């Protein structure tokens, strides 16, 4: 499933689409950035409520397919600018993290 298909299926809000053809191969949920760096896999859809600038660096270094800010968290303009610079897909979901994970799990099958 691509990032574009995820958006179509869920109705989640695209905040920044750097590469909507990027394939999503799994998911990871977490807010402790070092924990995420140790556990998230390349191609994961990363769910977080953490919205500081370091999220962009972690997304880039772990090579996740996209970042989904859950629980209605809205990142500020500096994060969007950094994500644009580093080609990171950013998405926003109103759902709680657990519900968002369940939806991804259903879609990935």
């Amino acid at each position, binding site marked *: 499933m691509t990032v574009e298909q995820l958006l179509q299926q869920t109705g989640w809000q695209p905040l920044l689409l750097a590469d909507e053809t990027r394939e999503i191969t799994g998911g990871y949920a977490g807010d402790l950035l070092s924990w995420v760096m140790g556990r998230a896999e390349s191609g994961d859809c990363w769910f977080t409520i*953490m919205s*500081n600038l370091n999220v962009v660096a972690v997304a880039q*270094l772990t090579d996740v397919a996209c970042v989904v800010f859950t629980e209605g968290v809205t990142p500020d303009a500096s994060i969007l600018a950094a994500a644009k610079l580093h080609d990171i897909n950013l998405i926003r979901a109103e759902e709680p993290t657990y519900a968002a994970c369940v939806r991804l799990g259903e879609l990935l099958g």
Partner: protein
Amino acid sequence: MEELLHYHFDVDGENFASAGEASVQVKRLLRQMGFSPDLIRRISIAMYEGEINMVIHANGGDADVYMDPERIRVVLKDHGPGIKDIALAMQEGYSTAPDNIRSLGFGAGMGLPNMKRYSDEMTVESTVGVGTTITLIFQSA
């Protein structure tokens, strides 16, 4: 041990938000050189943890990356307070990071363990009051 290429980066201790710039540049360089995605990921994550540690604990430092086709060596050197008990610091979950750093999503006590996990060899040399030097070696073949 004289590798073919050497890159030096100053890690700015003042700006936590921009921490990771050196790692991102190294990631780009390694990609241009055609190293495998898994190796690039391991190196850049381990180096980022080192950068973050230098910003949190030591007001910055120096990162040197030495590359040749067979291996990559990353040397992270700071003049911070040093690590009192290296074995304790290597344990997952142990952290001396302050609360304001934890609120940013760091300080989970995963920095050094992640560096060890992702490197093939890791050496920590530290003297209290003098500083810390961490050497990470990654085999590419």
